[in-house]
């Protein structure tokens, strides 16, 4: 699904990723953990195509196709979804209208007609039920005045609607209370299949109790320095990151 080799990237001449390798196969869940400033969000943004960063070397392949030169929307059309840490507010555009636009623009890029209104409504109903989203919520302006939890739930709702191949959840657990966390995690688990993959970026083990990863990676100083199974997350939770830093010396 996703294959990243020797990825090096910088912003304003400051090197952030320093030769990162990562392979994610269909059907897998990967967690990326690491201390602040390690480059976790940078990695997510670079996969999604944000152009603030300069990629100085390495490759990013999605299903054997190099996507590193594609515009963000083209990557989205190819099945990349990024759940934002800080979703943007768009006054005057309702949640429903926004997701309709996103779906139909994606269809258009694939040479398909707009999704019939009836089918769209049915899908919106199903997916909003999955995430326990109230109907009134859907007619509100996108993210405007939403609580932290509502924003994150709305991100996962959009993910459910767009059915991506590769979903990257960038600190989706931050700002969520335990009930919202359970709902969001439950949504992600139901969307999980043998054909898609999820990368969970998080500081805490908490989310991983609900979305159980096949692999846990530690990102430190721009590189993945340790990979293990779900138990690694528990170990990190108990011991912090210092022992890993010491191992590296």
């Amino acid at each position, binding site marked *: 699904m996703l294959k990243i080799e020797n990825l090096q990237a910088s912003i304003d001449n400051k090197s952030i990723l320093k030769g990162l390798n990562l392979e994610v196969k269909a059907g897998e869940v990967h967690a990326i953990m690491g201390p602040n400033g390690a480059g976790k969000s940078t990695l997510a943004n670079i996969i999604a195509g944000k152009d603030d960063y300069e990629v100085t070397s390495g490759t990013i392949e999605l299903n054997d196709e190099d996507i590193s030169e594609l*515009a963000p*929307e083209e990557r989205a059309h190819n099945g990349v979804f990024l759940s934002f840490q800080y979703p943007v507010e768009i006054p005057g*555009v309702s949640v429903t209208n926004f997701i309709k*636009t996103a*779906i139909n*623009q994606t269809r258009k890029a694939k040479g398909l007609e707009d999704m019939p209104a009836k089918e769209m409504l049915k899908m919106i109903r199903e997916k909003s039920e999955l995430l326990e989203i109230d109907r009134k919520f859907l007619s509100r302006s996108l993210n405007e005045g939403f609580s932290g939890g509502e924003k994150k739930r709305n991100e996962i709702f959009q993910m459910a609607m767009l059915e991506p191949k590769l979903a990257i959840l960038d600190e989706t657990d931050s700002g969520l209370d335990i009930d919202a966390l359970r709902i969001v995690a439950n949504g992600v688990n139901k969307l999980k299949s043998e054909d898609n993959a999820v990368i969970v970026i998080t500081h805490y083990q908490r989310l991983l109790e609900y979305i159980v990863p096949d692999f846990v990676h530690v990102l430190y100083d721009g590189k993945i320095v340790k990979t293990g199974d779900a138990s690694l997350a528990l170990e990190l939770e108990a011991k912090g990151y210092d022992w890993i830093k010491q191992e590296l010396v």
Partner: protein
Amino acid sequence: MELNDKLLSSYVAFENRVDTNSDIHEIRSEAFQNFEKLGFPTKKLEAWKYTSLNSVLKQDYSLFPNKENSIQLADVQKHFIHDIDTYKLVFIDGKYSSFLSETTHDTFDVCLMSAALTKPKYKAVIENYFNKIAKKDNLTSLNTAFANEGAYIYIPRNVEVEKPIQILNFTTGSEAATMLQPRNLIVVEQNAHVQIIERHQSLTSNPVLTNAVTEVFAAKDATVDIYKIQNDDTNASLVDNSYIEQKSNSIVSVHTFSFGGNITRNNLNFYQRGEHIDSILKGITILEGKQHVDHHTLVHHIEPNCESHQDYKGIYNERSTGVFNGKVIVDKEAQKTNAYQKSNNVLLSNKATINAKPQLEIFADDVKCSHGCTIGQLDDEALFYMQQRGIPEKEGKALLMFAFANTVLESVKIPEVKQRIAKIIANKLNVKIGFDL
């Protein structure tokens, strides 16, 4: 012949057509002398520093278009807000078209200035209100000198006009170039309510210059909502001089939507003569090409406990230029005034320009006044967010601009007007987003 000279020499011809033995004509003559003395504004005047009329004044305008025009409903209908039942005052090349208008009513007056200025029935109102708050500056004086036709609207006490009134000025291009000077008077008595939609529309690309003056009086407890839709041909220029006087507890809002035209100058003046008055001035400006819009607003807080709210949003593309000059005067007596002013602008091109200037003159000490001008580009993070969801850059930008303008659109009370404006914005941004904005 220069336009200035042409206007001066055609005044005699004008006098042959109107009753010169009237009080009104004394007002006209005085205004004429005033214009003769002042001439057209130049960039040397502080108030016209950023707007030059030179190129516009060079045209050889026909001042009293007289050719027959055969305008059919189908020619102009698309410019009506026609989904709703409205009263309509339609002027074709400055002349009233009874055929296209719709003024049937019995509880109030929607009629012609030419009738109001001459018929005894309207004499008292004209004497009380005509040219009472219009400034004596050059262009207003010029309009007053030739004041003869336009809309006359009188809403008596406690009357709530249930349908909006549209004032539509069309130019047909029957002349190579046309100059129009409509003169409107709108008097809304105590506790009365009216909504007005105003539009100037050229039907061809022949040059047009409109120098309009509108006086609005809102008595105690009156509510007046005015929507100015400026989406004209790029050869049409407009100077819109509006003067609004409010009495206690009245609420007047003016929304100005500037999407087109060559040079557009809006002089919007509010005078608060009473307490607990609310004045609302909002605008959305979206320009491209070499278009130019200049918003000059004035809110004069004369008495205590009043509010004013100004919110102007501008989006400038290509080589377009904008001006926002917002003046707020708070008199010494006007304690407890709340005056808010915002001018937010987005420049989409390196060659676009905006000059934003707040001017606050505050003589009272217990007031809340704020002003904020911002000039920026579209938010890259928000654009990335939309692209990440599969929305291409162009459509994403359009959505962002729509979101930016939305605080102004939100306060439009007539849904059909809101939809119309949203549609114009979508057309302007040249996108099909997938839902009606």
